[in-house]
């Protein structure tokens, strides 16, 4: 089947009534939480996961994906109008976006952000469609050793591309891997590391951990500082950019999309890094570089294109290899697993309607988002007046009910409490939760492939370096960590994340 046939199949799935409805719900919710500072896509997806069990697998993934890329759109609205990042990935958008708003050009800034996000989203969607199939056939030739090495690469490069201390992130991966092993041993069926608890025989509930580490810990962080700040929202005015604006948008949009698409595919790359890098590159390369920080439209377009492109292309490794490269993708893997779909190269052949339906729905969702974001901007602005003191009790209630309903058991609630408190403590110590959760999800898969590879090689650990693909993957992962550990690079790496913010 050619690409066109596949896309047609996708559209026939994505355009069905309920899928269209849930794509809209996802995009809408995503925009809401994107606009609201203090609640991100991670916590939202974790909270809503249990509610999607009743849905068809394709429909549920379409909705969850919508939340994710929708939040990228919503985040920029808050960044431009309020000088506050609604999402961390739009932090750099505040620099020039808010300046534009102060200069009375909030409308064109919002339009530029939405249009460049839409452009980037469309390009990234096509990229997924083109790249995923060949990547899948490569993945099908992988044995256990290659899969093991691929996961090592995923884990280590997520460390290399994240901000903060590398060695601490590795420590967090190890903790995640260890806790992920709780449950029943796949080979012998023996319970292990369960503290004798029946509730832990199926492992520690991933949804509860994610809700605790991201939802609860985030609320606690917000309670540190937050009073209800009186927000002053800039006046939006006319939405239309001038002809000159449009001319200045084209090149940054292309560069931002390219950077975002590339970094999104890399494990751990994701949206935050994409937008930071795109902004800095644009500042260096743009003819209007000196205007950056004073309301340059390029400074809005490039990072917004990049974070949306990155959000979309991070689906590539998850869909074609079954390996989540970011925590949001880990949640998607969790959603698929709970629906009885094993993520991996088989998805595209065994459930093509899910694969292509999801991809085409992303494009449709992006189209909806442009419509949602621009004409309805007044609605989002009024949303910003909802005080946090109402918001966080709502989040807690949703978390509690959501996690309860996963297994119809209150055990998960205790898990939220523990993981929330531990997650908060560790984040206070500058240990990032993302590598922990990635490790937690990959732990069982990593062990299974390690054991299978060693059985196949008669117990010879050299199998990992004798098989060329496996060796290459391992070398790249070690190389990535060594590279970012170099003193000059590590200084530069720190700068990328703090520069101008």
């Amino acid at each position: 089947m050619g690409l066109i046939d596949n896309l047609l199949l996708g559209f026939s799935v994505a355009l069905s009534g309920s899928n269209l409805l849930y794509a809209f719900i996802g995009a809408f919710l995503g925009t809401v939480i994107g606009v609201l500072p203090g609640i991100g896509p991670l916590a939202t997806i974790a909270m809503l996961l249990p509610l999607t069990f009743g849905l068809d697998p394709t429909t549920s993934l379409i909705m969850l994906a919508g939340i994710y890329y929708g939040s990228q759109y919503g985040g920029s609205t808050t960044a431009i109008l309020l000088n506050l990042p609604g999402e961390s990935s739009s932090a750099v958008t505040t620099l020039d976006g808010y300046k534009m708003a102060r200069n009375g050009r909030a409308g064109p800034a919002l339009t530029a952000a939405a249009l460049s996000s839409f452009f980037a989203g469309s390009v990234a969607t096509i990229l997924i469609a083109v790249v995923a199939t060949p990547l899948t056939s490569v993945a099908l030739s992988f044995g256990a050793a290659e899969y093991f090495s691929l996961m090592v690469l995923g884990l280590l490069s997520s460390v290399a591309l994240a901000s903060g201390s590398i060695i601490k992130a590795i420590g967090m991966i190890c903790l995640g891997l260890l806790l992920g092993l709780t449950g029943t041993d796949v080979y012998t069926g023996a319970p292990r590391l369960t503290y004798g608890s029946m509730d832990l025989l199926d492992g520690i509930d991933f949804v509860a951990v994610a809700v605790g580490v991201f939802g609860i810990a985030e609320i606690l962080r917000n309670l540190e500082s937050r009073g209800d700040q009186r927000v002053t929202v800039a006046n939006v005015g006319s939405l239309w950019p001038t002809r000159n604006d449009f001319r200045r948008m084209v090149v940054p949009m292309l560069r931002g999309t390219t950077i975002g698409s590339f970094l999104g595919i890399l494990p751990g790359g994701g949206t935050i890094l994409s937008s930071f890098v795109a902004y800095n590159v644009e500042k260096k390369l743009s003819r209007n570089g000196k205007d950056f920080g004073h309301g340059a439209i390029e400074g809005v377009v490039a990072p917004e294109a990049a974070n949306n492109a990155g959000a979309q292309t991070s689906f590539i490794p998850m869909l074609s290899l079954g390996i989540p490269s970011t925590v949001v993708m880990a949640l998607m893997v969790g959603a698929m697993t709970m629906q009885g779909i094993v993520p991996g190269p088989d998805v595209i052949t065994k459930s093509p309607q899910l694969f292509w339906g999801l991809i085409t729905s992303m494009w449709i969702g992006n189209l909806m988002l442009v419509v949602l974001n621009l004409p309805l901007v007044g609605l989002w602005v009024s949303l910003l007046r909802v005080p946090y003191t109402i918001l966080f009790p709502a989040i807690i209630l949703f978390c509690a009910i959501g996690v309860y309903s996963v297994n119809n058991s209150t055990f998960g609630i205790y898990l939220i409490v523990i993981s929330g408190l531990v997650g908060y403590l560790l984040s206070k110590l500058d240990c990032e939760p993302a590598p922990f959760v990635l490790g937690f999800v990959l732990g069982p898969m990593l062990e299974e492939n390690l054991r299978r590879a060693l059985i196949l090689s008669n117990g010879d650990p050299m199998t990992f370096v004798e098989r060329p693909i496996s060796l290459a993957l391992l070398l790249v992962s070690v190389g990535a960590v060594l590279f970012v550990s170099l003193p000059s690079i590590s200084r530069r790496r720190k700068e990328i994340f703090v520069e101008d913010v």
Partner: protein
Amino acid sequence: MKVNGKDLASGVIFMGAGAFYFGYALKTLPIGQMLNMGPGYFPVLLSSLTFLVGLVVAISSINRPQETPLGVIPWRGIIMITLALLFFAVFLFDLGLFPVLVGTAMLTCFASTEMTIRRAILTSLALSVFCVAVFSYGIGLPIPIIGPWLGG
């Protein structure tokens, strides 16, 4: 001597977790050998690695200044949110969904220092009505709305 307190603490936590899991796995699980790993093989391997990483983190904290302060700790928020969630888990079946949601929301509201009683009551009632509407009537969550303790 300057010590990066955050790094030292993280290192100690990693070491502690590594040591605990090492002992726990070694005591309760058969290890096997590399050709045919037992359930304990990978946990033992991994916990040793965790311990080592912790050691490196702890050692490298010495003679390095702490870059950012620890900041405030929202004790009130931590305590109230913990209590709220425990209240939910313990009394869900006895009180029923609606009363337990009101209680959980009330406790949560007072995690913030800026909450007034009036606002807390209004917020809690509104949120609980909303949740019951969505989850009980909308999705059909099988929990009684009013539990046995309240005659439901």
